């Protein structure tokens, strides 16, 4: 089992969609929300995903297809 920490950023049109619930239901992925800031017009959620790596990747592809932006939690590690 792998764990992956990611940040989802939602645009206004997706704020009301239960995307994280669907991710856990449609894929064999445990979703664990750690920090979030969701407002009427935008929002982000930092969460840990646990599952087989292939399944996590399939789930993330689906999330991306819904229009959610996905970024690594650790931001860029390559510096000038």
């Amino acid at each position: 089992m792998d764990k992956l920490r990611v940040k989802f950023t939602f645009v206004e049109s997706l704020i009301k969609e239960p995307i994280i619930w669907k991710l856990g239901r449609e894929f064999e992925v445990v979703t664990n929300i750690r920090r979030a800031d969701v407002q009427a017009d935008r929002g982000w959620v930092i969460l840990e995903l646990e599952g087989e790596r292939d399944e996590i990747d399939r789930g993330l592809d689906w999330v991306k297809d819904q229009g959610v932006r996905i970024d690594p939690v650790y931001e860029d590690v390559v510096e000038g």
Partner: protein
Amino acid sequence: MSFAKNLKCRECGRDYSLDPIHVCEFCFGPLEVFYDYEAMGRAVTRDHIEGGPPTMWRYAELLPCNPETAIDIGTGLTPLVRARNLGRLLGLDRLYIKNDCQNPTWSFKDRVVSVATSVAREFEFDTLACASTGNLANSVAAHAARAGMKARVFIPADLEQGKIIGSAIYSPTLVAVDGGYDEVNRLCSEVSDKYPWAFVNINMRPYYAEGSKTLGYEVCEQLGWRAPDHCIVPLASGSLYTKIYKGIKELSWLGLVDWRATRMSGAQAEGCSPIAEAWNRRSFLIKPQKPNTIAKSLAIGNPADGYYALKTMADTNGAAATVTDEEVVEGIQLLAETEGIFAETAGGVVISGLRRLVDDGHVRADEVVVAFITGAGLKTQEAVLPAIQPPLTIRATLDSFEEALEERDGVLPAARGV
């Protein structure tokens, strides 16, 4: 002695012991070093600092490591230059340049890496590592050599020869990674998770970042123990910017300078400006970008401290400027031609950014303004090559010399009187 007390999560405030960790286990927020300021305040005086070594380690008590075992390659206490020519041109009465080109590996990264290396040795790591497009790689390789540690330095495969030599000379293990920006980032995160190395800007990051505070300390001391009114700082991850401000605040808390409500402004190149873009949107939400600029030392598309930089900017009544790549080159030339300082592209961003901030009314003529120049121009010569004037090529005769001079200037200079 160090007065570092613990690590603290910047988001949820949870405390951790001083270990090689950088992320809160609970909320994944970044960790920051927290100090016993009361004890520090009793021990640190202006005289004590002034009697210290002529390097950044004169502020050792304000850093998170043991001064006796610090790895000091002669970093810091770089010149603070009164920039009268440039100031006159920009309409600023009291402009100063903090010239951090003069560090041992010619950039401010020596400050952060010096602290990270010292702490890494205290944690008994035997390997120092980083992923970098230039300055950080040079500094990590140099400090590892001095500390007797192994160095693993990851660089993009298409890096310019000059930047490779600046690291390779210290004989680190240089790993040239063939891949896009995101792929190199992902690989280095995976490597840092797997191997027990001190990655200076990953697991050492809380300590590493503290090294930038010394820029704030030095500027205050060099101004005669006075905080500047306005700082202009290049923005990459946002860490340098926030830590300079932290340094100034700490000196005020310790009673070493009067509080002046220093304003903090930043500059980015248009081709990678996630912090300035969010600022201009009046938002604290950073939208990561794919970098495309000649200012490669600032090319961080998903900045770790972007949010905190925006908070500092808002709290201090600062502003953010963006400049085009052409303006980056113009800024480098302007600084060289007015003050005799040859900066790398990040310096061009700062000078042209300062000009924009002045034009837009964000910087007042009567403020004590400090522009931070963080790296030397010899590192990014290719950026200015197309813009510089070629030499006059002549035969070795006086006629040929005068002909060439007249052709260029239209007139010959006055000769000595007979």
